[in-house]
Each structure stands twice: as C-alpha cells, then as structure tokens.
C-alpha cells in the first residue's frame, strides 16, 4: 500500500496526534476526577474521594427542573427542525422557485453564524411582535437555528439516494404522498435519525441563542451559567459527568445502529460532507 508511505519517516506525527488527544481530553478528565474530589474543585492532587457532590446534586431541585426544561426544549426543537428541515432539503434538491439561492443561504446560515446574532435578532423580533419570552421562545429559537443541521444532513443523504426507487414507485401507481412516506422517508431514515440525535444534543447544550430568549424558566446550560457566575462547585462537575456518560451512551447506540445498517459509522462526517455539498 503506497498510501501508507506518505510521510512515514515523520516520527512526530503520531506524537503530535497523541498530544492533541491529551489536550482534548485533559479538561474532560479533570472534570470527571474533580466531581469525586472531597475538597472542592482545584487543588492538586485530588484528595478525599467522595460521592457527596452527586448526593447534593440529586437533592438539588432547580437543577432537575432545568434538566426537564432542557429535555422538553430539545424534543420540541427536534420536531420543528426536522419538520421544516426535511422538506427544506427536498425543496433544495428537487424544486425550483425564485429566491432559491437566497433561501439556501438563509436556511444554512445559522450553522456558521455565531449564535449571538440569531439570538438577538429573534429577541428583537419577539419584542416587535409583542411576544413574552418563555420556554416557547427558546424552542422556536432552537428549532429555527437547527433547521440548518437537519437540512444539511438530509440534503447530503438525498445525494446518495437511489432515484430509480422513487420513479418506480410513481410508475407503479403510488401517488406522491405514498411515495414520500413509503420510499423517500424510509430511504432517508439514517440521515433523519442522525440529524435528530445531533439536533437533540446541540439543543441540550445550546446557550448563545437561549441566553437572549430566556423567560422565567431556565434550561440546564443557563442554570449552570447562573451558578458559575456565583462561584464554582463540584456539583457542576457531577452533572457534567452524568451528561457526558449519557452522551457517550447515545454515541454507542448510534454507532451500532449505523454499523448494522450500512457497515460504517461516523457522527459528524455527514455534517462535514453536508457542509461541503451545500456550502
């Protein structure tokens, strides 16, 4: 294999990669280790290992309220962004209308635009139309900003779609509606599930847009943010560790699902490819 030859005498490459991994994981490892540290965050070496922070966390009402809010927001955001993003990808693929180029740019813009601009624009919008800020405005903000993710992923999936199947379905007398539900959507299943999972986790973590659209009820990142401003506590490490473990489980499930379906895996490649296709 000559592709193995590339830079093979450059011994520094594996070491460089190792160093990058160390850099990427140092904060995560620190975070997890200090969630068990009896004497608070910081201080080397960690001492007095304890589960106290987790005990405090489980007794902490406001945190769990914000977790429930976040999950609610994330579910609703997934529904909105898939509900709009899947047709948007289909429209970009097979529909022609005036302003299509502008539409494509607009729908994908939040993928790269700093969240503060979308958040502020929506804040001013809600103020102009006199809507009070609440979880609903956050849902609308997340749902709208994350349409970009759904559209990009599903559009990339459409490029790999076997068009003949849709034609066959139409030729055999199925109407467009039936073809859409029985052929198009099942074929895009993996892109849609992948986009949904990604949107769910992105929404759970979103803070820049939520920051401006928050009403009385906090989402988890905003609850954490509020506490960070008052000082640091290992409780934050504990909740972060729990979320990290859940995220890992999601990745493993998704990985299995994809490997089972098409023998390869990868979260994010889709998105990177999608960005390349649509960008």
């Amino acid at each position: 294999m000559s592709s193995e030859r590339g830079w093979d005498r450059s011994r520094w490459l594996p070491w460089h990669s190792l160093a990058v991994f160390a850099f990427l994981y140092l904060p995560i490892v620190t975070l997890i280790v200090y969630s068990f540290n009896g004497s608070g965050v910081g201080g080397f070496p960690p001492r007095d290992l304890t589960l106290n922070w987790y005990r405090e966390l489980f007794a902490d009402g406001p945190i769990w309220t914000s977790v429930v809010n976040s999950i609610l927001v994330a579910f609703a955001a997934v529904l909105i962004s898939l509900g709009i993003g899947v047709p948007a990808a289909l429209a970009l693929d097979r529909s022609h209308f005036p302003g299509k180029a502008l539409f494509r740019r607009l729908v994908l813009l939040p993928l790269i635009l700093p969240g503060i601009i979308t958040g502020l624009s929506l804040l001013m919008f809600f103020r102009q139309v006199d809507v009070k800020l609440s979880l609903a405005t956050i849902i609308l903000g997340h749902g709208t900003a994350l349409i970009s993710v759904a559209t990009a992923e599903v559009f990339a999936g459409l490029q790999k779609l076997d068009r003949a199947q849709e034609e066959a379905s139409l030729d055999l007398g199925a109407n467009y509606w039936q073809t859409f539900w029985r052929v198009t959507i099942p074929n895009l299943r993996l892109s849609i599930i992948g986009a949904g999972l990604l949107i769910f986790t992105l929404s759970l973590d979103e803070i820049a847009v939520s920051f401006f659209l928050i009403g009385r009820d906090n989402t988890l990142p905003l609850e954490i943010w509020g506490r960070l401003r008052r000082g640091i506590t290992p409780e934050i490490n504990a909740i972060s560790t729990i979320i990290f473990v859940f995220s890992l489980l999601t990745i493993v499930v998704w990985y299995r699902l994809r490997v089972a379906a098409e023998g390869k895996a990868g979260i994010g490649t889709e998105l990177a490819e999608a960005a390349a296709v649509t960008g």
Partner: protein
Amino acid sequence: MFSRSYRAAITLPPVLWVTAFLLVPYAILFCYSFWLVSPEQAIVHSWNVNNYRELFRVGVYLQTLFRSMGIAARVMILSLVLGYPLAYYLSFHAGKRKELFYQLVIIPLWVSYLVRAYAWKTILGSDGVLNTLLQYVHLTNHPLSFLLYSPFAVVLTLTHIYTPFTFLPIYASLEHIPRNLVEASHDLGASPRQTFWRVIFPLSIPGVLAGATFAFVLSLGDFLAPLLLGGPSGIMISNIVVSLFGAAYNWPLGAAISFCMLLLVVGLLFLSETLERKWAYQ
C-alpha cells in the same frame, strides 16, 4: 417527475418559516441599527446613521473588534496546527485504528461547550489544578496569575472547543482524495514530502478553508468564554453587544455592531466559498 402540488408542499412551509423566523428577524436587526434610544430609555423609530457613526467615532468599539479578530485568528491558526496533522495522520497512517481515533476526536464535542470552558477555568485558576500541580512539584512557589483572566485563557479554551470543528472538514477532504493519485505520485518518483506538498495538501485546501472559517467565525462571535475566563483584557466584541442589550440598554447601538458582525461573517463565507471553488478537485 414531481408534480406542482408536491413541489409546493415541500417548498412553501420551509420558505414561509425561514422568512418569518430568520429573514424578518435579521431585517428587524437591520432596522433597529438605525433607531435611537431616548434619554427616557425608550426606543425611538427615527431613522438615522448615528449608531454607525458612533462605532467609528468611539475608539473602544473598533479596538475591541480588532482584538476579537486577533483572538479569532490565533484560535484559527492553532486549530489548524493541531487539527491538520491529526486529520492527516488519521486519514493516511492510522490503519485499523482510524475509526476509533475518529470517534475519539468527536467525543469531546458531546461535552457541553459551557462545561468545557468551565473545566479550563478550574484548571487555570490561581488555586486551580495546574497552579497547585506546579507548586506541588516545586516548579513554582506562587500561582502564575497570567493563566486565567487573560486573552491567553480565551485563546486556549476556544482552541480546545474549535479544534474538532476544524478537524472535521479537513479529514473529510483528505478522505475524499483518490488514493490512486497518491500512488501515481509515488510511482512517478516523487518523495513522500513532494507527494504531500504537491498532491495531498493542494487537494485538501477546500477542507482547510472550511475548517479555518468555522474556527475564525465562531470564535469571533463568542461571548461566554471571554466572560468566564477573559478578565478585563480578554473582552471581545460580543461582550460589548451583550452589555448594550443588558445593563447599558442601547439596543440600537448593539444592533449596529451585530449587523456589522453579520456582514463580516457573510463576507468571510463568500470569500472562503470562492477560494474553495478555486481549489476544488474536479
């Protein structure tokens, strides 16, 4: 092959939604930037360009914008320096462990942005992990204060956050390079170094541009890392916007700054797209 009504059904809802909740809000942002705040703190719809004049007249806005661009540029360069060789190693040399390593790059993306910034704060603080470690092994005998609440801390944290984002498009572009091109280069007698610089690197430029744009634009607009770790010398342009929308209560001026950022971002996207097209492998 698709009927008019089918096309209308897939086109109208997204177009209406995107118009109502993206186009109109951005337009409102634009309008706000021409309005004013009265001394009684009410927003006055009197159209004028005072906010834009203010931006160029008061030094702090441009200075902060340039400082933010400096921070974003440093993050971009560091992310490329960390991300490119990693992507190259994974794509060409990692062999069977490629898939595992790939997942290892992605996993940190699933740890909350805020939490990772916070983790750096606990590492860099004066009684944080790093300073106590340095004192524990007697490398220093007092905490190093430049670590936290400095542009350094902001650059480090943002680099940590955006390196995987930079890595992804570079890796995708490397993976798309037909391996027989690389083999042809070897067979024609090019050294590994020549093969890299003349074949592999030019073909990966679209990925590099996409990754660099991601890192630069997203760090430019960041306001949480500077608030958490930046201190007074690490303030970025978005922090000014946040304060104008909060305590300073001058939405129109904040809107003017945001609109300039929006223009800057869209301009950079066009630039990077044009360059990507120029370097695209056909």
